[in-house]
């Protein structure tokens, strides 16, 4: 393999990986707050893309993206308040089934609102064929936007969770809900907030990736599966690990093209997921001890 080809694969892999990672971070935030996997996470990504595309007709791009993020956060909060908040100590299984139901509901709603056609935001910089070259490796500027957005999100979340009072309250709620409640933290509000946060992150991801991947009413489901794989691979609940696992999986998928047809991409990622679940069930970067505490 020539060096050029190596780098071209590498960057393709980092692009996929960053997209997976952002979706996985959304899974992690809600998992930390509630202990459930929100299977409607992919739909938040789709909604972010679709809403921003619709808003773009009335306002400039940055405003449309901001508007889409805010509206999707509102939808996230609404979903939590309508479907989750009033349940009295629901089982994890019940919550998961509820989120699957919500994802189907959102997908069908999107089909009625936006129809079945594919849409996309314009490229943030340049157009479909703009590239810049690093040596002989060609990259679309949008790839840089995706990678930057991913980095900013991880950095921002770190500051939020470690440095702000609300972030600390959310972490307390994640570590031990009963204890957090005894300390005077309104744990129910924290759960609502976690839904808003992961909806907002999903929506932003949906906006930056839309020029590359396009947005369709059903594009959320496949993203959710990849994001879920990455979240498990990195160790549930750990956002930095999700980024590392996402990029690792993306690179593996990209390089696998040189050996097997691209259609086997998904088979490879699922095989890796199974392997991890057998060998290291708490993820590449998760510790079994932490996971046991979580269950308790």
């Amino acid at each position, binding site marked *: 393999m020539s060096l050029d080809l190596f780098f*071209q*694969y590498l960057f393709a892999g980092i692009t996929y990986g960053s997209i997976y990672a952002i979706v996985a971070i959304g899974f992690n935030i809600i998992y930390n707050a509630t202990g459930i996997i929100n299977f409607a996470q992919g739909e938040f990504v789709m909604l972010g893309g679709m809403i921003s595309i619709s808003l773009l007709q009335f306002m400039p791009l940055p405003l449309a993206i901001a508007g889409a993020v805010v509206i999707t956060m509102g939808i996230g909060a609404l979903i939590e308040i309508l479907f989750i908040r009033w349940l009295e100590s629901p089982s994890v299984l019940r919550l998961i089934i509820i989120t699957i139901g919500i994802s189907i509901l959102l997908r069908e709603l999107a089909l009625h609102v936006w129809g079945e*056609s*594919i849409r996309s935001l314009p490229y943030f910089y340049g157009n*479909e064929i703009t590239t810049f070259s690093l040596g002989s490796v060609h*990259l*679309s500027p949008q790839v840089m936007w995706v990678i930057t957005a991913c980095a900013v999100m991880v950095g921002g979340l770190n500051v939020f969770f470690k440095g702000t009072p609300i972030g600390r309250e959310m972490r307390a709620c994640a570590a031990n809900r009963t204890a957090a409640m005894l300390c005077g933290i309104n744990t129910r509000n924290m759960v609502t907030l976690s839904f808003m946060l992961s909806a907002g992150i999903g929506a932003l991801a949906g906006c930056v990736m839309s020029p590359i991947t396009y947005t369709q009413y059903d*594009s959320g489901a496949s993203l959710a599966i990849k994001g879920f794989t990455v979240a498990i691979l990195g160790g549930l609940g750990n956002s930095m690990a999700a980024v590392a696992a996402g990029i690792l999986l993306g690179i593996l998928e990209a*390089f696998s093209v*040189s050996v097997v047809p691209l259609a086997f991409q998904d088979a490879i990622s699922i095989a890796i997921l199974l392997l991890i679940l057998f060998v290291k069930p708490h993820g590449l970067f998760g510790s079994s001890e932490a996971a046991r505490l979580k269950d308790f």
Partner: protein
Amino acid sequence: MNKRVQHYLGGCVTGVLLLAASLQTAQAGTVKVGAIFAVTGPASFLGGPEARSAEMVVEKINKAGGINGNTIELIVKDSAGSSEKAVSFAKQLIEEDKVVAIIGPSTSGESMAVKKIAEEGKTLLISCAAAEVIVDPVASYVFKTPQKDSFAAQKIFEEMQRLKISTIAIAAGNDGFGKAGKEQLEKMAPTFGIKVAASETYDSKATDLSALVAKLKADPAIGAVINWSVVPAQAIIAKNMRQAGWNVPLFQSHGFGNIKYAEAAGAAAEGIIFPCGRLLIVDSLADNNPQKGLLIQYKSEYEAKYKEDASAFGGYAFDAINMVVAAIKKAGNDRAKVRDAVEGLTKFPGVGGIFSFTPQDHNGLDIDSFAMLTVKDGKFIPYKGQ
């Protein structure tokens, strides 16, 4: 008082009788036609315009008084692209609704699943899917309106010979359409003296193909790429090729025939070459073209009614329903006679081409039903070589 009640009752009875009578005539004067389209799901880009086109035709005919005074009742079933659903809908339409004919399904996989059921139920099926196997081998009750895959492949290879391209790469989605196209291309390439240096399959829902493009680009012998897939992959591969700075000609299947896909690929769509029916270049057709009047009529009616661009896919269903209507006009509400009438259609102008069915040919189109198109300044124009 008594008399008044009697009068009133009498009025009621007459009214009920009249109502019953009118109901009966309405029933006798209705011809049921079934339709199975993938209105939602992964093939909704086909099924959506197809269902809307068929509904538009039926509505127009009923408004004008129906066929010989009989109104058509179009029963549209949404298969969501699933073969299982298509099969159960086909059974339901044939056995319960007693339709005289079925148009659809939208995809090749569904059509193949339904083929046997239509044959056993002795009900006319006019498929709107592309694969050649639907009508080859011929089943007496099964027809199809889209042009054959092999004609599309042949058109592309002829163009390559003209451009003196000898080595190519094929990329195809892993759905029914992509698989059938890839087989067809691999089979036909040698007869045109063209070498297939690489043949790749990718997930039809793929969101980025830059790794695949990097792999193909690494082989300097490849002089052109043929991509056989549905949206959005056909726009993604165009973008990824141009982003990689790879400027070999990109050929697409007739599945590229919707201006929305060219818009989706934006600047990367420029110069894509693909075979398609003439609907998309109707403005540049000569006035004596036998299809021109019909194409303009379909395009303007569809676009006025649904406020979206007409596509070749909607045209498949437009042709199918028009054939059924023409056959009912001739043969009435009788399944076997309607089938015979469709097989007897010759020089029948449609959106896809001029149809002439024979007992051996249930597609009825020839290779001239395809024209080569390209994209220039975001618009489809006839391709005239470089």
